[in-house]
């Protein structure tokens, strides 16, 4: 289904997420330059934007776009990884005006620049604020593999696959270890 929807759009990684576990049905890694193309497909197919947010990780800011559909229930998240030193993503507010505020908010919190946004001024923070509250310091940043798991991978580029090395086993091992730890603590 997703293959057809995104036919012709260069996708870095397409995975079928575990809905019961993550609340998302599809998760799509994109490069910033193909984002607009993908969003245009979603727009044509009648998806609506739930929110835009970002997660700060070692590899960079992971900008997330959550989409949902009125008739075909199922959440789709577009993920765009941008580097810390030059966080630029094209703005999707031309197609989804709802993104106007979500992008301004993300700009406030993470300092991500949405290129082509008509009015990228502070939304929730005061106008003179010169900090981005949700940007973590280098010490507390974690790599993506510690934050999320890849579901059933449909297609994936090397570069994304490399971010999640043997994640299945590792996750299982870690989880078991943590549970033991938690029990020991309590």
């Amino acid at each position, binding site marked *: 289904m997703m293959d057809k929807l995104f036919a012709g759009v260069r996708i870095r990684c397409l995975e079928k997420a575990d809905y*019961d*576990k*993550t*609340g*998302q049905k599809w998760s799509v890694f994109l490069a910033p330059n193909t984002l607009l193309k993908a969003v245009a497909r979603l727009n044509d197919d*009648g998806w*609506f*934007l*739930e*929110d835009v*947010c970002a*997660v*700060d990780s070692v590899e960079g800011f992971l900008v*997330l776009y*959550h989409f*949902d559909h*009125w008739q075909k*229930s199922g*959440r789709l*998240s577009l993920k765009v990884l941008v580097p810390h030193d030059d966080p630029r993503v094209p703005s999707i507010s031309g*197609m*989804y*005006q*709802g993104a*106007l*505020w*979500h992008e301004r908010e993300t700009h406030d*919190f993470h300092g991500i620049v949405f290129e082509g946004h008509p*009015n990228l*001024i*502070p*939304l*929730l*923070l*005061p*106008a*003179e604020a010169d900090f981005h*509250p*949700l940007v973590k310091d280098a010490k507390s940043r*974690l790599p993506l593999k*510690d*934050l*999320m*798991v890849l579901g059933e991978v449909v297609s994936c580029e090397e570069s994304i696959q490399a971010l999640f090395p043997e994640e299945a086993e590792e*996750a299982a091992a*870690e*989880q078991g270890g*943590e549970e033991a*730890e*938690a029990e020991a*603590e*309590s």
Partner: protein
Amino acid sequence: MTRYPNMEQVTGDFYTQNFEKGAREGSLILNMGPQHPSTHGVLRIILELDGEYILRCDPVLGYLHRMHEKMGESKTYRGFIPNMGRVDYGCPLPWNWAFVGAVEKLAGIEVPERAEYIRVITTEMNRITSHLLWWGAYILDLGAFTPIMYAFDEREWLLDLLQTPTGSRLTYSSFRVGGVGHDIDDKFIEGLKAFIPYFRSRLPMYKDLVTDNIILRKRVEDIGPMPLDMCRRYGATGPVIRGSGLAYDIRRAEPYGIYDRFDFEIPTQDTCCCMGRYKVRLAEFEQSLRILEQAVDQIPDGPIIMDKAPKPSWKPPKGEVYFAVEGARGKTSVYLVSDGTKSPYRVKLRAPGFSNLSLFAEAAQGTLLADAVAILGSLDLIIPEIDR
């Protein structure tokens, strides 16, 4: 200018100056809020007026911004639940549910049957109180002072009842990961059973006093059209979209908890105007009452929280999760990224009012100032939820 030596200072702040850049010659720039009777708290809207017609407007947010998302990163999972009661004071229980549900989904926790029923009962009661508050406040926006008092009449009784399972009257934070915090008793069930027919008997009065009133109808009918395509572009949900004729309700579209067990309808109105949204909310009273009736009859005995409920130092597995519930204002959801430690790595709160309000600038264009107030009210704003 020389007559008023201090006049130069009055140039407006950053937002006004930014807004003024695109202003037409001879139009009036007006700051509505942040202290204005009908912006429901501290919303500020900069308007460009031609006479009383709105040429352009721009809401300015952030006056009640508390950065809940940052707080979430430093608190434990248990410690963040009280914050959920404060995000939206009008209808906090869906927020409770959204956060707790996200954590439960992440950790794969099963909630006891009775707790599920208590969650449904309290949430639906909360939906009614929230809609009652909205109803009164909306009519107040339109200039009638009395209905809010009648609405508070019912609301107070519901709040008295809600006190049993939540312990408080406004900022409920009674849900726990794996269940709920307080049990309900027979007295509560009796009170609720008495309340349902009473509230039904009051609804015709609402219709007589307000809904049928010609002045009100003229104020809200065909005002603020929000066609479905516009709702989609802005991501509007809840009564806003149901007032535009689409039966989209998370309780049906993406069932959570035990909502698939109840028989209820999703009221819709296809007029797309303020009256549509108004009627949808009034119809939701009846649907909530129906769910309450069924839930009260079916509620089983049993524990209200899972065995070995998570302690404050509990650590969920790592991973990301997105969980959405149907709040009084629409899709209320929490996106959570856990790194496997005691506190979340990232919490994103998706407020329905945020998306609904972003629609306002487009909907209000070209209307009268009084209509803008009517449109603003029909979106059912709770500013702390929008600013988070």
